[in-house]
């Protein structure tokens, strides 16, 4: 088994051409997957790549470097459209996990319950994939292909997450539903971003996680919400068909429960985005 900890991106990309590597960033998924057993793959540690640090803005995008931790997201000055991502960040595992784990790693791990995916879907995020051959950008929805499956080629490194400035408009909210207060994998979660214009919803981006192999945008509901009044949110959510979701039964809850809960927390995420005073809820 080999281990490499390059300090230059080119070096890392060069190594990726040579053979298949497991990529190590924050370690919060790497070590649990490793367990007590011996290492069975070559490891490329990207923690020496300073180029992947931090959050910065370009003329068109807000760019989250691949080594950015959840805590760094929480601490960063970002527009209110990112509030849902910050709320999700606070719900990732624990402070210990937030300090080490990275947002990009959360995407690459591609768990159906990845906390970062619903908010980033609702921010129209795309991922930057670099290889020795160049760079490509993929919409997040096209990057995560299924449970633990992504479109990253073996010679590619996810170097950044990019959110179009235009998609960061409006206000946002996030609700995670779990069976205990901290350190919990969600039963279901919802993220919502809403732009209001003249008392009506000009733009809505809504997504739900843990209710399908990959978190989904609710495009039907989004269309229904466009032009609706704030007071109509509940009725719109109640009548939408949620056909994008395909929840399963597991130890955390039944499929029927997930579907019903998804509807409720979607409404709550929208209300939170709009600052609608919702009745305080238990664990959600």
């Amino acid at each position, binding site marked *: 088994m080999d281990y490499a900890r390059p300090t230059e991106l080119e070096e890392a990309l060069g190594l990726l051409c040579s053979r298949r590597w497991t990529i190590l960033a924050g370690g919060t998924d*790497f070590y649990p997957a490793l367990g007590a057993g011996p290492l069975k793959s070559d490891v490329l540690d990207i*923690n020496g790549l300073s180029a992947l640090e931090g959050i910065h803005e370009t003329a068109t995008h807000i760019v989250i470097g691949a080594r950015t931790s959840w805590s760094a997201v929480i601490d960063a000055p970002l527009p209110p459209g990112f509030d849902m991502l910050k709320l999700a960040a606070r719900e990732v595992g624990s402070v210990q*996990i937030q*300090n080490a784990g990275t947002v990009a790693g959360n995407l690459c791990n591609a768990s159906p319950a990845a906390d970062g995916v619903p908010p980033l879907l609702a921010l129209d995020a795309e991922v930057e994939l670099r290889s020795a051959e160049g760079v490509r950008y993929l919409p997040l929805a096209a990057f995560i292909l299924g449970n633990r499956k992504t479109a990253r080629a073996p010679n590619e490194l996810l170097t950044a997450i990019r959110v179009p400035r235009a998609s960061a408009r409006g206000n946002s909210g996030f609700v995670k539903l779990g069976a*205990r207060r901290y350190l919990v994998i969600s039963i279901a979660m919802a993220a919502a971003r809403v732009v209001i214009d003249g008392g009506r919803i000009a733009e809505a981006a809504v997504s739900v996680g843990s209710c399908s192999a990959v978190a989904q945008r609710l495009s039907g509901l989004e269309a229904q919400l466009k032009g609706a009044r704030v007071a109509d949110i509940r009725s719109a959510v109640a009548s939408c068909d949620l056909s994008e979701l395909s929840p399963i039964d597991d130890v955390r809850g039944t499929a029927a429960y997930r579907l019903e809960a998804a509807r409720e927390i979607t409404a709550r995420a929208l209300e939170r985005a709009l600052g609608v005073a919702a009745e305080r809820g*238990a*664990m959600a």
Partner: protein
Amino acid sequence: MSAERLSVSFEVNGEPVVAEVSPLQRLSSVLRDGLGLTGTKVGCDAGDCGACSVEVDGAVVCACLVPAAGLSGSRVRTVEGLSNGSLSALQESFLRHGAAQCGICTPGVLVSAAALLEKNPAPSETEVQDALGGVLCRCTGYRKIIDAVMNANRSVASDAAMVEQGRAVGASPIRLDGERKVSGAEVFGADERPADALSVAVVRSPHWHADFEIGDTEAFIAAHPGIVAVFTAADIPGENRFGVIPPFADQPALAGGRARFRGEAVALIAGERAAIEALDMDAFPVSWKALPHALTPDEARRPDFPDLHEGRTGNQLTQGFVESGDPEAALAGAFVSVSGEIETSYVEHAYIEPEAGFAAMEGDTLVIKACTQAPYMDRDDTARVLGLPPERVRIVPLAAGGGFGSKLDISLQPLVGLVTLKTGRPAAMVYTRGDSMRSTTKRHPAAMRASIGADAAGRVTGMVFEGDFNTGAYASWGPTVANRVPVHASGPYRTPNYRATGRAIHTNGPVSGAFRGFGVPQATIMQETLYDRLAEKLGRDRLAFRIDNALVDGDRTTCGQALSGVGIRDCLEALKPHWARAQAEADSANAGDGRLRRGIGVASCWYGCGNTALPNPSKIRVGVTASGAVMLHQGAVDIGQGSNTVVTQICADASGLPLSAFQLVGGDTGVTPDAGKTSASRQTYVTGKAAEKAGRALREKILRFANVSDAAVIGLEDGALVIREGAVRRRVELAEIEAGSDGYAFCAEETYDPPTTALDGKGQGVPYAVYGYGAQLVELEVDTTLGTVRLLRIVAAHDVGRAINPLLVEGQIEGGIAQGIGLALMEEYVPGRTENLHDYLIPTIGDVPPIETILVEVPDPEGPFGAKGLGEHVLIPTAPAILNAIRHAVGVEVTKVPATPSRILAAIRAREAGQ
């Protein structure tokens, strides 16, 4: 890791260090194995428990998730860095508040809290919870941790450590083993390892039920440099079966040819540490032939399913039975009656310390140092398996990082023992979290049904109870559960006509054993939820109904035992003002028709202390040395509950010697007599009583020597006893007294065995000499759109007879409640699916509401200073009180626990559909 080792320079607790590491070695391993800083604990190796929390460059992280390669130039702070010559204010606060019990999570909690306090010296409760949400604690229930952190920077006027001579009982001195728990100095199972020890890996069955053949182990050893030996059932020199109840002992240390549950040990691989760490277990030569399996009692009792053990027909291990009066006639003639069924799940102990320890030869004695709750039982079981006389096995308990019943059974003891016997080298083993969860015991899943009837005046007239308990593949404590449940299933209420049957049924599930309450928590859910329905049918207030039926002095139990010192009525009455307030608050909160509905619930417990109708002795030795130290050979293993402190307090006051003169000698079977196992809430009562007798005997010897009466006061000054009685003052120079064979100038040893009798065919007799009682009130809120529950407050009234140490009593109550919350709302161990601490959920610091404790002290005529046990009692009422409060809030009965959001919402929807 096979990648090349490298040298990293960084700072630990302000000191520069250079460590040779492999690049992906976890920081937790660098600290513990490389630098010897074992204060940082490892509970899961997956970031799920937070026990290994350390600060790296000012950020709290799980050391198990930090690769060594990145440490160069970083600053690391561990628990060892919190004290600077003396304990920090935070550590002092932890001692003062009783915030550390077993101490295994304490380093992680302290490091996380210290980081918070540096940024925020006066945090709110929520801020403390947010900062500590990532550290699991299984003992304390978190409330004392919250108090300790919030009050860390407040000055304290009095020193709680000072206890007046003769007034130790009833005081709350800082626990005698407290300092090493908050400093990181405590030595747990994984914290000691001889340098030349072999590591041992266990090959475990991946199948529920399978025959297997082990292949060419010689070739395997030859192909793996550093692997020294492989051992199988054929290598076991003694009788290859163990079990906590000798007549039922049936579990092989290593299965021979057939595995009966997933996770069962089938072979051992011993080797040099690096070789074992690098070993791919898939390379081990074993072939499996899966057999049909049964995971539930119903499956196991099907006529076509074979018996897992010869002679246990229909896979029934045993049955317990209690009958009195004519229950059928009572139910038929009842004014009202109710019937119901409840199912419970496997519950995992989830102590934060996985099993760990090592074996080594000392002359021709095999010494095993490991975490345990029962050193003498470990000794005898291990000796039997290894074919040694018990005297040639010595068990030295290392600190137990939580036990709750599962560390009563042996786990790694015969395995490391076998390797050491065969190789002559020390052998060490630390279970992974997965191994711990897969291979050790669980709480029995129960399927129960019961009917209870009452007369028009609201008096319970009869009850019938039947429970099937899934006892898994081997006996363990299944017989105890089957026998204890029928004795307790009535609850602490007069039940003149009664029949209760408890059956332990074998399956291919995990072995069910002892877990805080031995089946009584499950049975109490059945009984107490039916009591709510009975009260409702009668139109009676639920609390008043319980008060009317509560046992009082002179009443007979369903076993025909006449009771005295019964405090259940006092407990229930103590809840009355809280009940009225909570009811009013719930009514007012529910006045609107919002989606949040308040509910309140109450439930009781009673619990007999010690073995059920079986001998259960404890022996205590106490001696005064030539230098004036009082050595207490205290074999009641302190697994966090506080027996080290409580037993000493009792002995101090019984002897009249100052508590500060006492030094503890632990439960090492080589030097300390058998104080029995830490289980069945017996240590305060049974070992406490032995300590009381030993203390009195020691006093008697000293007084006789000094020729004074019992009115004399004994003091210790500079290696002398100073005895005063009125004007008489005698000074006894201890060094001048010839020491006895025990090495002491004065020594006493006393045994106590509870006066119980065997039960007859109808379960009649005196199963326990002492019972403890309690009742809890739960206030909660149900979100009717999500099925989620938010606990608002719990008031717990417990009759402990005499609170030997009120702070430790509170700690037990809060910790028991936290486990009751888990049982009620989230804990469901699914074999093969939830073998980690992120799929198996236990309460976090955000899941335990404020708890108000009311100590009720109705002295027991038998207990030391009137004390009763309480360790298990405190868990029992919580789950039924929660279920009763949910029913009160939203009108639904959840008949399978845990009552997850999914199950609660389904019950709400079913009820709506039925209306």
